[in-house]
């Protein structure tokens, strides 16, 4: 059956068609849609599938892994940096193995589109000694998902699927199973203490030996199943290009566009590679070029004097694949000598492509985070404060100058501890979202209370994982999980603030918190109850539909709104006055009373108030 699907949809269908009935994970671009699509398929077909978010990637991995130990076919989904969090579980699971097939989807983000690092999850698979499959297209993603489950069950080891963003968020016609004959394994835990409860060194050492032997068997499997037929198609002796994942698609098109002739090998499983067998073939070539994203995974396994790639400075080492970069690599090894066919064409003499000001992502118009950050920077002045923050939409408050540091999930709290010790003359005001707090913010908060670290922590609770597409958070679906109670349970008071669009009220609240902080000996915690403006279910209760406009007589072009408050609809017009873009204004009314020092923002009464 042919279906037009995005890569992540294809992975979700692949899981269902592979009889996976436990899916767990944590949202993260570009992986997020996989689990939500499984939830949609489940609802549509009335399946009895477990498809739920974990509180973080480690939790998600472990839920799925235990399912696979008990014989179920399972999957854990996450983005590449999420795998860093789940890595403790993965490294150990790779020794112990599983009975039912388990697929670990680690979606990479070459080019840093939505991630703080680029990394390459295939390297992580190599580090953990588990096989990894690298799809080039959504069709591959569907096929390899099913294949990955089969391989995992056959070799009793978790298998990684490593799609990059250009696979996850690519769209094409997929050929998939005509029917869904969903027949999941029955889960049954079979006690095997030396295996599931393996202790160092007695049980772990033999498991380590098994792990090494398994990799040798998998190398053989890789050759027999995938690689030998690829090499059988080769017949040249001058240039061989070995690729995996998106590298294949880019390399193939570059060869067609440039007219360069070469043998092309597509690697399905970039680790473990049967490098001894491969070398019998690669040795025959004058030059072997490796095209892969983003680190030299294949290259380092088959390194030889005739092998070119990142370590020989032949291909690019950072940022996304482009055909221009592959052409450049071909030029670097003297395989291409023509002009750059991907150069921007010369425009006419009269016209050069103009420089356009960058348009970075910004907090949405009407987002309550903006008001909280505005109040924090008003009450805790920059010169005497440090603002550690975290991973989520609120990271975009960087534009307001309200964030000083971003490291990784949950780090705002522990870094607030560190800053408060290192520079005690400043007030440390840390911010973290609700989903990130549950993900990684609780252990560092307990640490701060335990060690009496004095700082302010503001938990921005909009009851959703907003940045990745508004996935459910623990407290959203289970009302008894309450951030305030969690903080109180750790032994300290939690100052609750109910967001209102009256900025002076927000500022007054933080003035009160400043007084509490001055007398405090440990962390002062605030939970700001907010909403997400894109959250159709909740936003409607909060947004008063008070649209703003500008009294041009009063606007003195002082920049206060465009530098400190920074709401996207505010922009200078040709008269040098601020104008509100009516299509962007969300009607939150928050800018109407405090933001403008000359009161130029007034309500646009011509606009309808209907919700």
């Amino acid at each position, binding site marked *: 059956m042919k279906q037009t699907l995005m890569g992540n949809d294809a992975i979700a269908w692949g899981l269902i068609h592979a009889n996976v009935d436990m899916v767990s994970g944590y949202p993260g*671009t570009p992986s997020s849609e996989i689990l939500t699509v499984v939830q949609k398929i489940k609802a549509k077909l009335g399946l009895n599938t477990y498809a739920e978010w974990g509180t973080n990637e480690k939790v998600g991995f472990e839920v799925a892994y235990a399912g696979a130990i008990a014989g179920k076919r399972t999957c854990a989904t996450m983005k590449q940096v999420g795998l860093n969090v789940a890595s403790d579980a993965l490294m150990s699971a790779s020794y112990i193995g599983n009975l039912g097939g388990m697929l670990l989807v680690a979606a990479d983000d070459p080019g840093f*589109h939505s991630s703080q690092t680029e990394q390459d999850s295939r390297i992580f698979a190599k580090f953990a000694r588990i096989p990894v499959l690298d799809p*080039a297209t959504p069709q591959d993603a569907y096929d390899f998902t099913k294949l990955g489950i089969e391989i995992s069950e056959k070799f009793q080891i978790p298998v990684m699927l490593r799609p990059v963003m*250009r696979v996850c968020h*690519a769209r094409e016609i997929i050929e998939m199973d005509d029917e869904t004959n969903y027949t999941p394994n029955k889960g049954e835990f079979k006690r095997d203490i030396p295996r599931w409860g393996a202790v160092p060194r007695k049980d772990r050492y033999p498991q380590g030996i098994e792990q090494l032997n398994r990799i040798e068997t998998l190398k053989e499997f890789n050759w027999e199943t995938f690689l030998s037929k690829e090499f059988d198609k080769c017949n040249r002796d001058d240039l061989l290009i070995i690729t995996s994942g998106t590298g294949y698609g880019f390399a193939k098109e570059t060869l067609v566009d440039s007219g360069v002739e070469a043998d092309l090998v597509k690697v399905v499983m970039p680790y473990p590679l049967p490098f001894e067998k491969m070398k019998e073939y690669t040795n025959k070539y004058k030059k072997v070029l490796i095209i892969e994203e983003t680190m030299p995974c294949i290259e380092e396994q088959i390194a030889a004097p005739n092998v070119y790639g990142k370590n020989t400075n032949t291909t690019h080492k950072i940022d996304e694949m482009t*055909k221009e970069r592959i052409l450049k690599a071909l030029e670097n090894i003297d395989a291409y000598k023509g002009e750059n066919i991907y150069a921007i*064409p010369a425009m006419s003499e009269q016209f050069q492509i103009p420089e356009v000001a960058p348009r970075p*992502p910004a907090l949405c118009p009407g987002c309550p985070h903006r008001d909280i950050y505005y109040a924090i920077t008003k009450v805790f002045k920059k010169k005497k404060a440090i603002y550690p923050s975290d991973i989520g939409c609120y990271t975009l408050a960087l534009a307001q100058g309200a964030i000083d540091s971003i490291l990784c999930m949950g780090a705002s709290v522990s870094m607030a501890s560190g800053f408060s010790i290192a520079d005690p003359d400043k007030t440390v005001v840390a911010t973290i979202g609700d989903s990130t707090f549950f993900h990684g913010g609780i252990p560092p908060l307990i640490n701060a209370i335990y060690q009496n670290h004095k700082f302010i922590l503001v938990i921005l609770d909009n009851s959703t994982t907003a940045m990745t*597409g508004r996935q459910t958070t623990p407290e959203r679906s289970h009302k008894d999980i309450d951030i305030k109670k969690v903080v109180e349970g750790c032994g300290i008071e939690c100052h609750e603030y109910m967001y209102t669009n009256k900025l002076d009220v927000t500022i007054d609240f933080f003035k009160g918190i400043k007084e509490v902080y001055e007398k405090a000996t440990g962390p002062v915690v605030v939970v700001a109850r907010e909403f997400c403006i894109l959250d159709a279910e909740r936003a409607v209760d909060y947004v008063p539909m008070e649209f703003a406009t500008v009294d041009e007589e009063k606007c003195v072009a002082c920049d206060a709104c465009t530098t400190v408050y920074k709401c996207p609809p505010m922009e200078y017009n040709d008269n040098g006055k601020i104008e509100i873009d009516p299509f962007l204004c969300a009607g939150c009314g928050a800018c109407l009373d405090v933001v403008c020092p000359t009161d130029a923002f007034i309500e646009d009464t011509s606009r309808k108030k209907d919700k």
Partner: protein
Amino acid sequence: MKYQSVIAGFGGQGVVFLVKVLAICAGNRNLPFLGTENHGMSQRGGAVSCHIKIGDFTNPVIDNNQADLLIGLEYRETLRNLSFLKTDAYVVSNDDPKFPELPFKTAKADAFTKAKNNEFPIQGLNVFMLGLTLASVPNFPFSVEEVKTAITQMNAKVAEQNIKILEMGLDAGK
């Protein structure tokens, strides 16, 4: 046939919707295609540039000097994406007084002013620009009827409204 299109705008304008409509058009005719979309952080009002390549392709990304068509939902986003175009490409763009003359075959309409005058709701801007494309790009691979079918398949509930706006875009291009 090989036909490569860039659709540009900023987060919230419905760029991805247009990619999906063109993908459905291609799917309905069983033409192979590869498209790529922006999700996540780039959706928060930031610049969005989605690509769809119809024909025998193996990766979804368009390189410089390759695209046959650029649809820009805002004039600055049109300008930002010009480097993708071949010299004989078409540009269909939302107009602005600051929009320069381009050395490409260009169709423009001031869709923001039309939306401000309540000719159509701003959410329909993407479909309006698609209508303008259908009217002004002779080698565009899909017919008006094919696009209408795809819009209906995308979301039947709002199809009537969207098709009305599509026709306004068609009229603007005549």
